[in-house]
């Protein structure tokens, strides 16, 4: 709680790395994230998402199975992707939400707005139907 100078900050809970990989499965770019998504590491995810958007990819899914926790920084990047897909008539869905993350989306009033799917099969079906 102390207010020491910023450059004195010790490595604390905000220092975890985020592992982000993209697999193309049946034409869908599946962004697989592993680790807690925090302000301090969200740039890894944001640059991957920006890259996919820049490459005009129109079918993007987030696999959050390995994400136990996300802060609002993670929600922001997911919304950024969702909005961008909406603008381009692309399709977007997420799956593998932990109980905690599900609560984050519920409290934020996003569970009824974002396509949150129980698993990859449902995600695939959703994205295919959105395109058909």
């Amino acid at each position, binding site marked *: *709680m102390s207010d*020491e*100078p*910023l*450059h004195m*900050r*010790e490595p*604390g*809970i*905000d220092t975890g790395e985020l592992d982000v990989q993209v697999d193309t499965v049946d034409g869908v770019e599946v962004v697989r994230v592993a680790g807690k998504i*925090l*302000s301090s590491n*969200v740039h890894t995810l944001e640059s991957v998402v920006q890259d996919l958007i820049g490459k005009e990819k129109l079918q993007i899914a987030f696999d959050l199975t390995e994400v136990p926790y996300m*802060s*609002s*920084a993670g*929600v*922001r*990047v997911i*919304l*950024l992707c969702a*909005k961008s897909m909406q603008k381009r008539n692309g399709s977007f869905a997420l799956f593998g939400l932990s109980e905690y993350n599900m609560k984050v989306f*519920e*409290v*934020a*009033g*996003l*569970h*009824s*707005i974002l396509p949150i799917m129980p698993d990859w099969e449902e995600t695939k079906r959703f994205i295919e139907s959105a395109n058909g």
Partner: protein
Amino acid sequence: MPAHILVVDDEPDLELLVRQKFRKHIRNEEFNFFFAHNGEEALDVLEQHKEIEILMTDINMPKMDGLSLLSGIKERDVNPLLKSIIVSAYGDMANIRQAMNRGAFDFITKPIDFSDVEITLQKTIGLLDTLKSAKRSEKELTQLYQQLHAAKQIQQSILPQDFPPYPERKEFDVFAHMIAAKEVGGDFYDFFLIDENRFGFVIADVSDKGIPAAIFMAVSRTVLKGTATQGISPSECLERVNTILNNESDSGMFLTAFYGILDVKSGKIDYANGGHNPPYLVRNGSGVIPVASNSDPLIGIIDNAKYEQFSLDLKEGDTLFLFTDGITEALNKTEEMYSEDRLIETLRKQTGSAPEVLIPSIISEIADFAQGAPQSDDITCLAIRYNGAST
């Protein structure tokens, strides 16, 4: 800019030789040489010409030898980056070791091989360049940190800080506190009298951290206050704020906000919730309950989002406690969260406390819980106690 080099040797011919061998470097302004003939003279030259970054010195000299010179520069006001190259007789390992121990950067041996001198000088200049660029980066970073620190202070100073804000109002007490995390972030609280009988209050949390979040926080706070003080209903207020911010924000920035209006005559609160964690209602003497609300969307990102309006009645001695997730998600050293359960328990123990007692006790409880674990998010809370209509 040439590299400034001081050559120290009691042999007067060396100066001519150096000027001759390095004439091209001197002409091209790569090297600029200074000369001294013993350690004492060298120290004076180094103090006069702080631009000298490389010292190349013989060991055996009258008045003050090279080893004493190496020790002497530590006590004198010379260029802090100064790198020393010692010139010693071939095989004089004892003196070379001693020179290195006194801080020499490198050595060359006699008889002097000028191509080796050139390589040694270039290597030293390369290192100096690296050091200088690291120093520049360090300076820039320090300035940036200072600016961030200033930004954090400005951000906190725009929130209402004077308590009690309305000492003449007996119908309610209000207290709020925010402890910013080390990084600038985006929590805020605000309150204002809309008119004689309506007291508006808000707690909000902006997505993410850093400068973009801080700017978005300042904008959001202004938009919210400007909209709310027009006296419109909470639900309409959040809808308007959502539309305004949604049009502004391309970065995906958003905020969660709970906005309520207390009717100070009746104790009735009308409120709407834009994706924020629900506040707790601390009933005087009968428990702690989360206030009912919809999970309406967070603000600033969803087109035409709707915010349903709810209401609750405060009885005399009841307190509404609003907070951000920096409280419930405060971590201790074993990464355990403070949690809603602990918060409810603490609130229960404080039933009936005045806000200015309740909030400090919660903050100190969280500090005890964290056991010194670093605070990763802003901790913000606002409490309003209703004292009944004044007579």
